[in-house]
């Protein structure tokens, strides 16, 4: 049986206190949310923090609430709560889809969105849809509060731009654009789709008055050291009609831009193939929703 090594456990009830403890330990301390990543890593000896700071006693970080036309999702919001949220389901389809296929119900009942981002995994399911939705990450630290665009959060596998003492407090999603649609899909080693992503893909499309694509966003998981934004593919779609031909081309470009590696789960070449398939499929899904939204009511 894998056992946890001894560690000092703090359970602060305020954010300030948590930040103070974390900052004092200068990176030796790790925040704990759902623990579905951290505890596993500690058991396997991949993480050996001498100090663990439980964030779950801090109030107010587990709410989904409207802000300035957009939506603020607290860092301690559980994936199951995102899945159950009508606001997310209606306004942020890519994020909602991702919340439905992240692991299994028992994991979703524990896992938080903050932990998913804090982990800094290139395979995490939350980052690609948040990139597509244009989210900002709210961070609280010894130097006060700052916001980080989601695509700047990740620096490398397991590495984020958070300084010692900084914690994620929320993600803020702007109001979804009118005549837009978004989607998320992933494929794992099992057919069921609830496995860690071999590749995950999110796409967002906004249609202009002329029916052409005014804006496109494509983000991928598990194909690069960080969640990957396929900017060349996005550029190839702007100004084009939402057609199968252009989607297929963009998907091919996205697969070329990606920088997958081979590991225990899949080869780089297979990941590239999947990236193309999933980008194509999410673009179709997103276009379907955007076209529905564009129909005058």
């Amino acid at each position: 049986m894998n056992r946890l090594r001894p560690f000092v456990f703090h359970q602060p009830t305020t954010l300030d206190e948590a930040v103070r403890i974390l900052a004092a330990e200068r990176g030796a301390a790790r925040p704990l949310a759902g623990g579905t990543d951290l505890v596993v890593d500690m058991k396997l000896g991949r993480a050996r923090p001498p100090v663990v700071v439980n964030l779950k006693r801090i109030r107010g970080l587990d709410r989904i609430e409207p802000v300035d036309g957009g939506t603020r999702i607290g860092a301690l919001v559980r994936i199951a709560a995102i899945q159950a949220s009508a606001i997310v389901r209606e306004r942020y389809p890519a994020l909602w889809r991702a919340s439905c296929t992240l692991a299994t119900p028992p994991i979703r009942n524990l896992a938080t969105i903050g932990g998913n981002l804090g982990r800094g995994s290139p395979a995490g399911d939350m980052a690609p849809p948040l990139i597509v939705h244009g989210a900002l990450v709210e961070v609280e630290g010894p130097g006060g509060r700052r916001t980080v665009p989601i695509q700047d959060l990740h620096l490398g596998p397991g590495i984020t731009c958070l300084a010692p003492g900084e914690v994620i407090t929320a993600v803020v999603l702007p109001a979804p654009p009118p005549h837009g649609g978004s989607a998320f899909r992933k494929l794992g080693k099992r057919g069921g789709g609830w496995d860690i992503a071999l590749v995950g893909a999110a796409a967002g499309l906004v249609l202009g008055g002329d029916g052409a694509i005014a804006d496109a966003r494509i983000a991928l998981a598990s194909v690069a050291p960080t969640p990957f934004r396929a900017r060349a593919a996005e550029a190839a779609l702007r100004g084009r009609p939402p057609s199968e031909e252009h989607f297929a081309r963009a998907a091919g470009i996205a697969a070329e831009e990606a920088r997958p590696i081979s590991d225990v789960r899949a080869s780089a070449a297979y990941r590239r193939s999947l990236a193309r398939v999933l980008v194509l499929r999410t673009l179709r899904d997103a276009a379907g929703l955007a076209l529905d939204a564009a129909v005058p009511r």
Partner: protein
Amino acid sequence: MSGLIGTSVPRRDALAKVTGAARYAEDLVVEGAWFGLTVRSTEARARLLGIDRDPAFDWSRAVVVTAADIPGENVVHLIEDDQPALVADEIRHHAEAVVLVAAPDPATARAARAAIRLRTEPLAPVLDLLAAEAAFARYEIAKGDLGAGFAEADLIVEGAYRVGHQEHVYIEPQAMVAVPEADGGITVTGSLQCPYYVHAALARALALDPARVRVVQAETGGGFGGKEEYPSMLACHAALLARAAGRPVRMTYDRHEDIAATTKRHPAVVRHRTGVTSDGRLVAQDIEVIMDAGAYATLSPVVLSRGALHATGPYRCPNVRVRARAVRTNTPPNGAFRGFGAPQTELAAEVHLARIAEALEVPAAELRRRLAYREGDVTATGQVLRHSVAAIDVLERAEEASDFVAERARTARARESRLLDAARAGTGSRGLHPGAERIASGVGLALGWHGAGFTGSGEKALASRAAIELAGDGRIRVLTAQTEIGQGAATVLPQIAADVLGVPAESVEPAPLDTALIPNSGPTVASRTTMVVGGLVADAARDLRAQVEARAGGPFVDNYRQDALTHGPTRVDARFEGYPGIEWDQEHYRGDAYPAYSWAAAVAFVDVDLDSGQVAVQRVVAVDEVGRVVNPLLAAGQVEGGTLQAVGYATIEEMGVVDGRYRNDRLATYLVPTALDAPAIEAHLLEVPFPDAPHGAKGLGELPMDVGAPAVIDAIHDATGAWVTELPATPARVLAAIRALEEDRHGEPVDEGVP
């Protein structure tokens, strides 16, 4: 007979298991037991130069055992006696046991283990089965004149098939508790399949009089063959530590250690070269089987033997050569696993037969019907199949139950229209329906056979003994060495006895699995329990009934309690004498390889995502003919479980080896089907009784494992047109096969790397 055969008597072990009352090895409270751990090699091959103990650790808190401390022979007794209990000089595989430590608590034991360093000098390992030269066993089966057969052929079809490791994933990892006895003997209790294998190994390694060795089976959470040989190793380890510590020692593996160190299903390469006439006869089968045994022989010679004997598939062919070898590599030893070599070779045989049908342009089901064994046919070893041959029966029932012909017509139409769409859409888009996903469904069929009981003269050599006892208090017990490992042995053997005695099933109990009580009725393996030992139990029960009825002058059921009181206990032992007319020539591999065969067919329904290569197995219709079905519910459970294990083998179970180490050595990376991945399985049981067993039963446990995987591969082919020739059919392999085919069809280069 009280008509109990063919009724679903409830499982005796069910209530305790579902209520949590069942006591597995880890649940046993053993006063004062220490905790044992293993120091393992981290190299595939190396010379062991020394074992260093960190002087900073207080060694008075732990005991340490090395090869030098083994009182008896340093072997885990099985077939070849080549595997040491602990490495003495050469490390031959990764995760090999080198040193044992035990301490009063787990933390101290872990600290002691961490304080031991192995000093080694690396040696060049052999890791690839095709590059391996040394073999633990080689067999050649020959029939007819191969050259003449190929000369007669209109067509020669060749194919090569490869399968990887499979892990048993029994729900309870290996566990053992050893207790030293005052008389210098040892009692070992644990999770195991074959108490007398463990017994023999302990006597040998500890240099003990067998009478001083006692082996008891704790409640055991599954085996699938994985607790056939390895428990002997772990029992020796626990016993060696218990002797050294002078107190009980408990050893329990966690899942990671269990996967890293214990046996797997043998990886294999099987090559077929087949001569076929244009009217659809097989005239020559030349088959080469290479199995990777790993670093030690364990059971590889017999696994290979069964693999070779099933390699032709159940098909008529006058000229056959099967050459088989089990090679030595520096990887952890492979061993017994449900099917015992047959799933590997039958996969190859079935996929190859379907490819022959494709080459002949006849439906494979039709070709199977024409070629499959019928009564009177002669196998590759010259065995005349005299009775209970049911290949055609299972084939036809599987076709009916799955509506195979109509389903095949439906998938063929879908394939046609996809090809048309692809042609219309041009090559550039690879035939994408605008806006649609390319999910193709396919239906696949496989036929198989499985020899029941030990191979060749094995059962005769075993000379199993089983007994039945009417105790002085009127209780009736069946005494065998057959372990309950979830398959129902503890229910079925008393059920067979009760049927003969004419008493209710609950009136007969299984004796505790304790070598101090039970006779050696052989191991719980080879689908032999119900057929062979069940037959002995029936014989013994018949004798007991006759004795009591002669004394009482009336029916057993009305008189046995009184008889027990007045006459005292009666025990009847039955010894296996051999089935009539079974002759086997081990030297030339000729004769009756098995006393009887069971027959199976499976039809698998799959959906294949043509762009990702993902395969979802939706439904399997499994038809198994097993002689008389003793307990239909338990039998259906075996069919369902074996089919699911075969589906996992075919699709997601991939171990992988990197530098001689298992790559997917955790359940996070070694995937087995969950409820979400499991297809709907419909089990159909057919009965063509085995005339030479008193109760007519043949073997069942392994049979479903032989046909599930080839049915899935055939279904993937039906969906995609592509043959996947390597298991498991991972999405990457399926996609590569589809791409290769599309490239063929369009004559255009593949535009990106194919894994």
